[in-house]
């Protein structure tokens, strides 16, 4: 510098390393968390300019109150059939998770990931989207497939890498791909699907089509560069896309503070790009549905993208490889101030006089049986360690459209060597 100045008497610098509120053994109290009132947040017109929406990302859009009543302008006023369909899809998702988790524990496959407590974020979204809108999910959106009535047997076969696995045993469990359900091939690399969704939406817009795209990432994954690319491109080209952030508070062992949650909300990222941002109670399926519908209408009207933060809680471990008791208090789940999405929708339907405990119990039983039956059928096609269910040569296919000489040679070499070795 031109002119060095005298040393200041400011205190020494200090590094701030975030620390979650509760660690294993801590008593949990979420009293300081301000949920806001159900029904309290205004619902702007879907054509509103993003400038006028800058306070929205700090409010929490909630529809269902503690009594299970739907409140306020975001109430999507769904009929009871739709509500029951959503309840059923959430319950089926949960039943499916339960069974596949156990299947992994029984050694039938290598890996599984539940979405327990977060079912509303994908089931609600799927109900609000059109059937031909394209979904670019992360690995915790099994609810999308289930809500689009994709056969759970097909999902199970993928998980078992068995002879019924359309993905030929190539992918880790839960890395589904279902083109016919508008469900993109899941990647193990976090957040890569985000700019892809924007690209799909840009293409749809460039073609004058009416299909929009939606994508999902966890709050931890928002730190990846792909998140920024997606938001930037979405903003620049006003892409008809819905960018969902599932803030389930945890990224493996790291709490949301390591993705920036101490400083602001994830919905507020939208403000930085000049796009619409909503923050919803992710355990309130009516709020999720309403927010998704708002964003979809906005996109379809050429008013641009919306970023939606779904505020929820990862009720279980990150995956079957994880043990959450090592890094967070076991009390968190029970004390979560926004409850459980299945219980809340059930309460709402009961309050409406459209449901009761007996029907709920019957549904749970029926779904458990259904999942068990489908599970048996899938297992009849093999489970992971039963021995290989795919011909060896499939390993060398689909790398390119046509198999080049070197893969052909390698495939032949493998067969010859196995033969020579007598296996």
């Amino acid at each position, binding site marked *: 510098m031109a002119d060095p100045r005298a040393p200041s008497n400011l205190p020494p610098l200090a590094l701030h390393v975030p620390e979650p509120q509760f660690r294993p053994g801590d008593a949990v109290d979420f009293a300081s968390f301000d949920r806001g009132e159900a029904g309290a947040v205004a619902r702007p017109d879907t054509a509103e300019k993003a400038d006028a929406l800058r306070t929205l990302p700090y409010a929490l859009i909630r529809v269902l109150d503690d009594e299970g009543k739907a409140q306020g302008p975001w109430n999507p006023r769904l009929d009871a059939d739709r509500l029951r369909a959503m309840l059923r899809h959430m319950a089926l998702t949960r039943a499916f998770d339960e069974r596949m988790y156990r299947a992994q524990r029984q050694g039938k496959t290598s890996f599984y990931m539940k979405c327990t407590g977060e079912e509303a974020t994908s089931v609600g979204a799927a109900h609000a989207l059109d059937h031909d809108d394209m979904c670019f999910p992360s690995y915790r959106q099994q609810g999308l497939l289930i809500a689009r009535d994709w056969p759970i047997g097909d999902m199970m076969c993928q998980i078992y890498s068995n002879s019924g696995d359309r993905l030929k045993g190539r992918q880790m469990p839960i890395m589904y791909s279902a083109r016919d359900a508008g469900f993109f091939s899941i990647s193990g690399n976090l957040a890569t699907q985000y*700019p*892809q969704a924007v690209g799909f939406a*840009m*293409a749809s817009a460039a073609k004058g089509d009416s299909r929009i795209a939606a994508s999902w990432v966890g709050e931890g994954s928002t730190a990846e560069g792909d998140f920024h690319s997606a938001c*930037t491109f979405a903003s620049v080209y006003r892409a008809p896309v819905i960018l969902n952030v599932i803030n389930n508070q945890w990224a493996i062992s790291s709490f949301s503070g390591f993705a920036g949650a101490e400083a602001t909300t994830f919905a507020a990222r939208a403000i930085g790009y000049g796009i619409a941002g909503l923050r919803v109670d992710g355990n309130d399926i009516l709020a999720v549905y309403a927010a998704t519908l708002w964003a979809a209408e906005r996109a379809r009207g050429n008013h641009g993208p919306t970023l939606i933060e779904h505020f929820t809680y990862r009720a279980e471990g990150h995956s079957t490889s994880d043990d959450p008791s090592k890094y967070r208090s076991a009390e968190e789940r029970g004390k979560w101030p926004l409850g459980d999405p299945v219980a809340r929708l059930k309460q709402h339907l009961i309050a409406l006089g459209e449901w009761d405990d007996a029907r709920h119990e019957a549904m749970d039983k029926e779904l458990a049986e259904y999942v068990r039956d489908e599970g048996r059928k899938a297992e009849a096609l093999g489970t992971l360690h039963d021995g290989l269910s795919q011909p060896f040569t499939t390993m060398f296919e689909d790398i390119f459209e046509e198999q080049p000489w*070197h893969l052909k040679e390698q495939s032949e070499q493998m067969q010859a060597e196995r033969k020579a070795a007598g296996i």
Partner: protein
Amino acid sequence: MSEEPETRAMNMIQAINSALDIAMGRDSEIVVLGEDVGFFGGVFKATEGLQAKHGKNRVFDTPISECGIIGVAVGMATYGLRPVPEIQFADYIYPALDQLVSEAARLRYRSAGEYTAPITVRTPFGGGIFGGQTHSQSPEGIFTHVAGLKTVIPSNPYDAKGLLISAIEDNDPVIFFEPKRIYNGPFDGHYDRPVTPWAKHPQAQVPEGYYRIPLGKAAVVRAGEAATLLCYGTMVHVALGVAEETGVDVEVIDLRTLVPLDIETIEASVRKTGRCIVLHEATRTGGFGAELAALVQERCFYSLEAPVERVTGWDTPYPHSLEWAYFPGPVRLTQALKRVMEG
């Protein structure tokens, strides 16, 4: 292949531009995107005029985010388009690597063919323009190691157009490296001599219309008996120059596609000559030349009279002022040829 109508002398930029234009005219799903490719037509002018002709929905500028460029291209391909993204310099492709390696290259495999990524990434590469370490790199060796990517490198205008059309029409992701040193004229490595423009070169007579050069096929650009020179891009011209200067009767093979490689042409040649040199500008260690040397000795071991030699860039970043000391030019190749002929 097929109809080759009116030809015109083109440099490589013009040939690439023509390929894009012709391909876009035939297939409305093709879109071109990248930094400065729209109104301006690209910093090397390869996309000049395309936006005016094909519209802003099909040719547009992007934010400066290579990750985003490839990411949205993959998404557009999922919709059904056939994107041709440009990465302004190959040196800037690294931020896009995850989208290329983990996404574009893997998509067909991991979805068992449900989804594909027919994108062609055009990017200028190589040195010789005093671009220093960030406008000179040849990173092809990173991509040839990745299962699921094709790598194509033309060495002249005729091939550039025919290969680019094939790449765009190919249903797999292709990295199309353009040797920027020879955009305007062939270059034999004699940096102290005046540049020859393409116009004088037979491979600069380019059909105005549609034609393809198949991927995966090399070209024997000089037949010979004494030794096989395996090369691509700018180095093809260095090889031809040294052949002429030394009078050694070498066979020069322009690989054109690195993956999938034309192994038949290579094997036939080395079996005949018994000697082989591989050439590239990229750093030596772990470059594509290592793969070529490994393959040749694996498959032609008993025909070889001498070890396969590598004439490559040194294992250093591309230095600015010392670029001709880095570039694997005629001096280095001539010495290697001597060794191989004596070996």
